[in-house]
């Protein structure tokens, strides 16, 4: 479904990515790991169009997408979350959710002014869908709270549910479990699994937490210094000599600045 080929990217002389490649099969959950500063987030940014690449290719559903602007990529069904939980703080949970739906007639000035009937019909449908997702993620009771007033964990859940509402096919999650408590992590993993199985969504997840990786990922790719050094099933990767060595080595070398 997603094929990333030989991506190079440097920032003012610092090479963040040197030929990173990746493959994600439809319906799978793929983990992306690597030491700090190995370029995981940069790779995410390149794939999702937030950051132009220097060279290389990204194919999604058989089409090249590496020249497209980020919103185009999102429109084609590839959505992402952000490492630091970014939420539109001044909007309520429901507003956050309703923002996500695609193809809203009322999102143009003309539609807003003159197609009130169809707009409100659409709003009703979307509202129903949004509420059911919120229900699933346990956010229904905070539907009218400002997103900025939610706890960190809830904000993460909101990011996830908002992405789900935008009905993507491939979801890029950037450290979804960072900074949330253990029970919530378990809950979250269940949800991801649920969406993989029930709604046949595909996931690509950047993660530090090995437990998460081994628990839900079908495949794991390891990125070190901007290059993928191994891909495979979690059990295999955990035992892979190269990975361990590179991983530990990189950690010891007091990695350079995190480039994100």
């Amino acid at each position: 479904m997603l094929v990333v080929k030989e991506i190079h990217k440097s920032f003012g002389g610092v090479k963040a990515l040197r030929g990173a490649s990746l493959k994600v099969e439809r319906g799978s959950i793929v983990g992306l790991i690597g030491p700090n500063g190995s370029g995981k987030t940069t790779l995410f940014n390149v794939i999702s169009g937030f950051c132009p690449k220097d060279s290389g290719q990204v194919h999604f559903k058989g089409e090249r997408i590496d020249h497209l602007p980020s919103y185009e990529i999102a429109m084609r069904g590839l959505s992402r979350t952000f490492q630091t939980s970014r939420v539109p703080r001044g909007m309520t949970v429901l507003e956050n959710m309703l923002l996500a739906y695609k193809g809203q007639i009322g999102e143009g000035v003309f539609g807003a002014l003159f197609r009130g009937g169809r707009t409100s019909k659409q709003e009703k449908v979307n509202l129903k869908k949004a509420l059911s997702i919120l229900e699933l993620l346990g956010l229904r009771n905070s539907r009218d709270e400002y997103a900025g007033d939610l706890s960190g964990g809830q904000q993460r859940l909101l990011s996830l549910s908002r992405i789900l509402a935008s009905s993507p096919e491939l979801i890029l999650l950037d450290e979804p479990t960072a900074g949330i408590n253990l029970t919530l992590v378990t809950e979250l993993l269940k949800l991801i699994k649920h969406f993989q199985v029930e709604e046949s969504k595909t996931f690509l997840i950047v993660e530090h937490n090995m437990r998460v990786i081994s628990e839900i990922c079908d495949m794991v790719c390891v990125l070190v210094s901007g290059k993928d050094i191994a891909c495979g099933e979690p059990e295999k990767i955990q035992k892979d000599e190269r990975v361990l060595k590179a991983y530990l080595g990189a950690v010891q070398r007091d990695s350079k600045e995190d480039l994100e």
Partner: protein
Amino acid sequence: MGGDWALFLAGAVSLAGIYVIYTLGLNIQFGFTGLANLGYVAFFAIGAYASVILSMPRPGPDVAYIVGYGLPMWAGMIGGSLAAGFFALLIGIPTLKIGEDYFVVVTFAFSEVLRYVLINEKWLTNGTTGFYGLERPFGKFFSGRNYEFFFLFLIVVAVIIAYLVMRKICNSPFGRLMKGVRENEPVCLALGKNIYRVKMKAFIVGAMFAGFAGSLYARYTTLVVPEMFIPYFTFVAWLSLMIGGRGNNKGAILGCFIFVLADQFTLFVQASAAYAVRLASLRAFIMGALLIIVLRWLPAGILKEKKVTYR
């Protein structure tokens, strides 16, 4: 005291009403979408000039300007707001994609350049002489005092229409989208929203409101000259919006009324040569201080942005 309060207030409220429409436009640009337009007065000026030029009769041989289309006044007003919107499009193309700070500077510079153009391009704008003795809408049908109240009525109708249109836009999914762009651009991009287009639409709609307000203002003052459209006007809209409450259309209305009426009542302080200059500088000081105070201690304004709930 035997003053004619009714007539005085008719004038003051008409003026406040024009400011309301003007500030509503800034509210959609800044309050909803977060576009810090420091050259907002430019669109006001374009609206005023375009509406006048469109409805001026064809010029005779002894004047400096050569343009004048003789359209009816209402067509001029529509044309004025369209022209303002068109210029917003032109300014938006290069600036909305680059950073916020660049947008601020370019819009600011645009409002100044526009004033130079208004002064220098005599063939179009009649230079510093401007256009004067402008007719007022339906002016033929009413006499003196009555007309002032009729004009007030027209302005009130215009304000109500403008408010309803703005409310419809802001309560729609488009309003939500603008807020999303203001709050968090990357999130909107990740949701597949073309934020550039959203900003552009908000910028154009806001400019059209400014243009419409400008075309009304030209009929209130009965003249347009370049010296009327100084950066101070931009500041007035900003201050009204900040005081009233950004992101809240009712706040914009409240802010304008507070600002214009307070300003009107300073007229009741008898001016004297010794203090007039001091008073004028004091006004500038108070306005500046008010902005600082509101930003610091009342950042949401008097009327906070309304929480949107869905049933």
